[in-house]
């Protein structure tokens, strides 16, 4: 095993892992508030990237375009809650999850019409030249994605553990009826979780587009990988999402580097299966007693 290669595989894993981590983070909040796994999360990521690209093409300066993209995506997230999730209030989590799958297909179709069917890229937000360390190279943008994930984790933690609204969210997830009895407006709490998740998705899309490129249908696979990362880390845990994402990325990179690029996804998913068999709630998942 040579050091430069090992380092290069690790850098690749961190790059891809940071992307997965950012997507995985989007799942945590909605899950925490409503036990729903939002399969339209990948479309939030797509909307963030695509809206920025198209506003940029229309002549809007990119930083402003990015801010507007977040606003647009949050609006879509709130609308998704208001017009699709809210009317089905009282339905079981499985029904709500299926609604989010429908929403994801709808958003993809709409994006195909509103934007186009081509691939797009954004210039890197930070310097384009690779940083060379010990014979391996990493792009500054990868570090920015990683940094973005850390910042979001800290903000999420502060929000959930340190604010009243955040605590209301945890209470809603634990027992909706009880939460309502103590005066929490659970509808607004769940709506808020969709809004914030959409914002996280949009930020993810804006940060990762210079690396992954984007198109109207980029959300599906990102959501799948992000979901796998979230499960691995323990769904509902922000730290778990980041660790799960990075782990999944590293697994893929090392499998591609040392085993075979043909089987890298298989290797990664095999490891996830084994972990989940041993720890069904994921690495950082809460004990089930707390949730009931």
């Amino acid at each position, binding site marked *: 095993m040579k050091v430069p*290669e090992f380092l290069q*595989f690790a850098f690749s894993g961190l790059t891809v892992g940071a992307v997965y981590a950012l997507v995985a983070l989007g799942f945590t909040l909605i899950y925490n508030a409503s036990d729903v796994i939002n399969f339209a999360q990948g479309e939030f990521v797509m909307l963030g990237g695509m809206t920025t690209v198209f506003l940029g093409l229309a002549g809007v300066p990119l930083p402003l375009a990015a801010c507007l993209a977040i606003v647009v995506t949050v609006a879509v997230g709130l609308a998704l809650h208001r017009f699709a999730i809210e009317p089905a209030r009282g339905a079981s989590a499985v029904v709500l999850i299926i609604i989010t799958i429908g929403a994801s297909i709808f958003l993809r179709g709409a994006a195909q019409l509103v934007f186009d*069917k081509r691939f797009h890229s954004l210039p890197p937000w930070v310097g384009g030249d690779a940083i060379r360390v010990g014979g391996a*190279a990493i792009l500054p943008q990868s570090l920015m994605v990683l940094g973005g994930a850390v910042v979001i984790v800290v903000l999420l933690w502060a929000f959930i553990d340190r604010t009243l609204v955040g605590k209301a969210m945890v209470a809603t997830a634990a027992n909706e009826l009880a939460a309502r009895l103590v005066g929490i407006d659970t509808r607004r709490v769940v709506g808020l979780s969709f809004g914030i998740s959409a914002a996280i998705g949009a930020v993810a899309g804006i940060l*990762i587009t210079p690396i992954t490129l984007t*198109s109207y249908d*980029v959300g599906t696979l990102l959501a799948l990988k992000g979901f796998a990362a979230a499960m691995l880390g323990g769904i509902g845990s922000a730290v778990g999402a980041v660790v799960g994402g990075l782990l999944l990325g590293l697994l893929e990179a090392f499998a591609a*580097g040392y085993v075979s690029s043909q089987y890298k996804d298989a290797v990664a998913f095999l490891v996830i299966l084994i972990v989940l068999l041993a720890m069904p709630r994921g690495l950082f998942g809460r004990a089930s007693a707390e949730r009931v």
Partner: protein
Amino acid sequence: MPAYAKTAAAIALWLASGVGQGSAQVKVGAVLSITGPASFLGDPEKKTLEIYVDDINAKGGVNGQKLQLVGYDDGADANAARTFATRLVEEDKVVAMIGGTTTGATLAMIPVFEEAQTPFISLAGAIQIIEPVRKWVFKTPHTDKMACEKIFADLKQRNLTTVALISGTDAFGKSMRDQCVAVAPKAGITIAHEESYGPRDSDMTPQLTNIKRQAGVQAVINPGFGQGPAIVTRNYRQLGITLPLYQSHGVASKQFIDLAGPAADGVRLPAAALLVAEKLPDGDPQKPVAVAYTRAYQQKTGQPVSTFGGHAYDGLMIFTEAAKRAGSFDRAKVRDEIEKTRNFIGTGGVVNMSPTDHLGLDLSAFRMLEIKGGDWTLLQ
């Protein structure tokens, strides 16, 4: 029979007779993937056929008859394609079929047209469509195999013989990889190492690192489609690999240059002459055709030209030329004339068909391009 049924039957009769009287027209079928995942292929094909059928009719039609395009959208679903093919044959009674956007749809439709003895000009890529040769089936797009051969020929010219492949695991990447591996020994090229990546992967540095440490590799070929090759190209420069990099005709669009950015500089790829229509030397036989098609398409649709629409143009023109030579729309005569197509200059190349070759293109159909300063340059 209740009154409404009688009325309905009467209307149906009237409609049928109306259509019958109006149709001194000859019907040409087109099953295309206008929506769905292959819509970026099917959409320009449909627009091209519409533009040129109108154009032909405005000029008086073919053999004194106007053409009527009967189009269906299979949504890239082979089952739907087969159903529409049956409808074209049994209800619309088309004299020929131009279409089949994807290889899957084409292969599903072949038995229908073979049985109905109706000429079928496919617009899909795979070589399986014309190998083995089927009596009624032709195609216009060049094959992956030719792209491999073109790249290998260029390598030989540079005295490079040992290459590594990094291919996408999508249908396009896989098919081209298989063709390259198959023709490499004949071309005197050794494939020393192979890597692959998923069509949606966002980082290929591990695979490229493995290629980088292989001793003796002189060039790298990337059969792939979509955004993967752009990421491969970026990672290639990120790792500072200096070997020549070859991309495939699958990314021969301006979009690739936009996505890969400055990393694309120095990349070579085979592409149809259509993409560099304006850059072709004036004596080039394809130049007038390619330039005329490019201008007509861009003017009518406002969209940049793609080779896919060009395949549809070639298909329609080969059919109408054959029908003119046959002097009628008799299916068997038209088929024979299609097979006798010689020196037809289309957007895809110069077509010379024969009973053993229902494609009729040779390597000159591909031009070797190098990307310099964010634009194509034509290599001689």
